[in-house]
């Protein structure tokens, strides 16, 4: 398999690029932020649905486009460039993926069409601690007469403030990881949203004796860990694709600045120390491009190495996005630390993306563990 896009994937990428340049330039991100951190623009979301992006990863049997994650990743990369806000990653990349992968046909039939047509969106609730540790779960699901009682708290739930339902990880009475679909308006659910560094809103959710039915259990007996691992691989890879967009855009803006900005009578891009640093960034970004497409392809073909590739991608992107956004600000100089220009937005989004679904050190350690050292 070659590590390049095919014609259809290229066309999708180009159309996403054009669409977002028109409908969601970075200034849109600034506007949403200045409107008291508005989570996302509902009109834009509906247009995204019409572009078909919510159907890309959905198999044909659920009326999706079955276009695959490589294509989906191209869209996310372009959204990363524009810092576009929309529940595409959370509702489709995470929750629809989880639904498709599960064997609960009722939940699938109930939810997949609504997620695809964008009338509802779902959020994935797994984090409980300040650091990422998906398998150590304190939220409990105790069996009741006709289902489960859920108790516990989740944090960092992307797009959780406006979601219609959550997929929630919990520990069952027989100490097994299980995933449940819980309506956001169910009794006992309290949602508190927080604005993070990237001007995004994330939900902290408390479940107090929330009663759900047996049919709302998404994961089969004994299969919870596997499903959760699959979702987190998908999440890490899709987010890496978005991060690649952030990296390339921050880099391109910086190169453009180096080409035009004058200091001491010369364009600053002519200073050798900056040239070498830019060239080193270029090399790291070339590596990022490769690992992202490789990992996206692995999702599409069900590669057995998916665990390693997901960690490679997220670790490498985590390392490079930090380096790139720091260099971008430093090379912009004083203006780079003002709110007047956009480069700081990339730095801020980068720091949150680094943390989500495991940071650099989490994935580097996981990569080593997967290689048994």
């Amino acid at each position, binding site marked *: 398999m070659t590590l390049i896009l095919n014609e259809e994937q290229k066309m999708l990428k180009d159309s996403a690029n054009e669409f977002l340049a028109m409908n969601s330039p970075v200034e849109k991100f600034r506007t949403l932020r200045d409107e008291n*951190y508005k989570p996302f623009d509902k009109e834009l979301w509906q247009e995204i649905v019409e572009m078909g992006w919510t159907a890309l990863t959905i198999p044909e049997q659920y009326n999706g486009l079955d276009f695959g994650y490589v294509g989906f990743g191209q869209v996310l990369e372009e959204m990363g460039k524009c810092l576009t806000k929309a529940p595409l990653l959370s509702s489709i990349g995470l929750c629809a993926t989880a639904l498709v992968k599960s064997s609960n046909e009722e939940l699938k039939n109930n939810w997949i069409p609504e997620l695809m047509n964008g009338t509802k969106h779902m959020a994935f609730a797994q*984090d409980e*601690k*300040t*650091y*990422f*540790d998906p398998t150590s779960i304190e939220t409990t699901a105790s069996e009741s007469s006709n289902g489960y009682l859920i108790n516990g708290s989740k*944090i*960092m739930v992307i797009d959780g403030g406006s979601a219609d339902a959550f997929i929630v990880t919990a520990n069952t009475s027989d100490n097994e990881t299980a995933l449940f679909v819980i309506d956001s308006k169910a009794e006992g659910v309290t949602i508190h949203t*927080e*604005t*993070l*560094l*990237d*001007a995004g809103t994330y939900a902290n959710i408390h479940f107090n004796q929330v009663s759900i039915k047996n049919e709302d259990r998404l994961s089969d007996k004994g299969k919870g860990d596997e499903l959760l691992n699959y979702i987190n691989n998908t999440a890490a890879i899709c987010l890496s694709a978005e991060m690649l967009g952030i990296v390339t855009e921050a880099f391109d803006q910086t190169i453009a600045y180096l080409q035009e*900005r004058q*200091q*001491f*009578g010369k364009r600053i891009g002519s*200073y050798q*120390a*900056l040239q070498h640093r830019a060239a080193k960034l270029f090399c790291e970004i070339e590596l990022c491009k490769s690992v992202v497409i490789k990992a996206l392809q692995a999702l599409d073909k069900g590669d057995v190495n998916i665990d390693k590739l997901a960690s490679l991608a997220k670790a490498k992107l985590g390392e490079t996005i*930090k380096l790139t956004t*720091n260099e971008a*600000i*430093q090379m912009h*100089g*004083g203006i*780079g*630390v*003002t*709110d*007047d220009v956009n480069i*700081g937005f990339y*730095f*801020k989004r980068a*720091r*949150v993306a680094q*943390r989500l679904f495991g*940071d*650099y*050190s*989490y994935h*580097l*350690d996981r990569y080593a563990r997967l290689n048994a050292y």
Partner: protein
Amino acid sequence: METTTKTNLEDFRLETRKWLEENCPASMRKPVRDSNDFFWGGRNAQFGSEDQKIWFERMLEKKWIVPYWDTKYGGGGLSNEENNILTQEMARLGCRKPIFSFGISMLGPALHKFASEEQKMRFLPEITAGKTWWCQGYSEPNAGSDLAGLQTKAEDKGDHYLINGSKVWTSYADKSDWIFCLVRTDFEAPKHNGISFLLIDMASEGVSTRPIKLISGKSPFCETFFDNVKVPKENLIGTLNDGWSIAKYLLTHERQMIGGVGETDIRQELHKTAKAYLPLQDGKISDGVLRHEIAVQEMNDSIFEMTIQRIMDEAKTGVNAGALSSFFKYYGTEQNVSRMELLTAITGSEGLQWEGDNEDAKVQVRRLCRSKGNTIEGGTSEIQLGIISKRILNLPS
């Protein structure tokens, strides 16, 4: 300067300690949280608390606002040794500075070295009395690291200069009474030779300011505009067109201020924070990558502190540490930045909270953002590395 015997110094220490214990209010011995905890002085001076006022006034009466300046300027006239003792004793009790003043830390040294006696008598006593809030006007929009490329012009109009142009990164310009400025007085000369050092009353007609918002949020920085501002000729410090000498002298001071100091608490707390936030295994931080990075940070932080001490010790023996201010500025700010990054990684999701109830988290995330400016302001890291390579290592141009 009179020499003081060791016995006298020991007496001075005991007296000072006693006086501070009796006169410094308890609330003025608590660590400063932010700039609001400082008294800034000036025409419209406002005290943040009654204790702050008492403390300032007692120190003023004692002439210890600037204890080491000459008494004729309202200073305390202390010898170096005495001043060191006072500093040590204040540190011992945790006494706050009675005032935070760029007049003392930055303009003062320049006036001492470059101003006429008349000018000193005019401006220094106002500083020691806390009556003037000074800000600095060096950088200009588009000038960046090329400080000497400044374009704000001062035209000779006989008895005054006429100023047009603008300055950026002027801290607290919106609250200041006066600004010390670099202006261009000769457009024909090579760029370093046409600059002069001018003092401008911010109340002058034609001066206006606009606050600058940073990625960390609100900031004390302003843009300051000069629109046909008249400045009396006697406000020129030093020689006409030789202001660059004063600028260089002051920049060396500024670098030392930005590089070295003020983060001691976080330095010591890094691994403690990590242990509070991250899971442990056998008493070790189980995240091996972060543990490694923390150890490197703490290694370099603590050795950098030793290095400041070593170079200060060498300076006392007469070794010229002037060019080393670039090393302090470069290394200190790079360490600040990496420390904030590490703290952010350690505190995970909590360290990313921009709005909400967690005040500590909100302060920390803004400090992360603000730290990005440290390696830019006061001469970028690149400028400092250039100075080290040329002035210390004598590498060719």
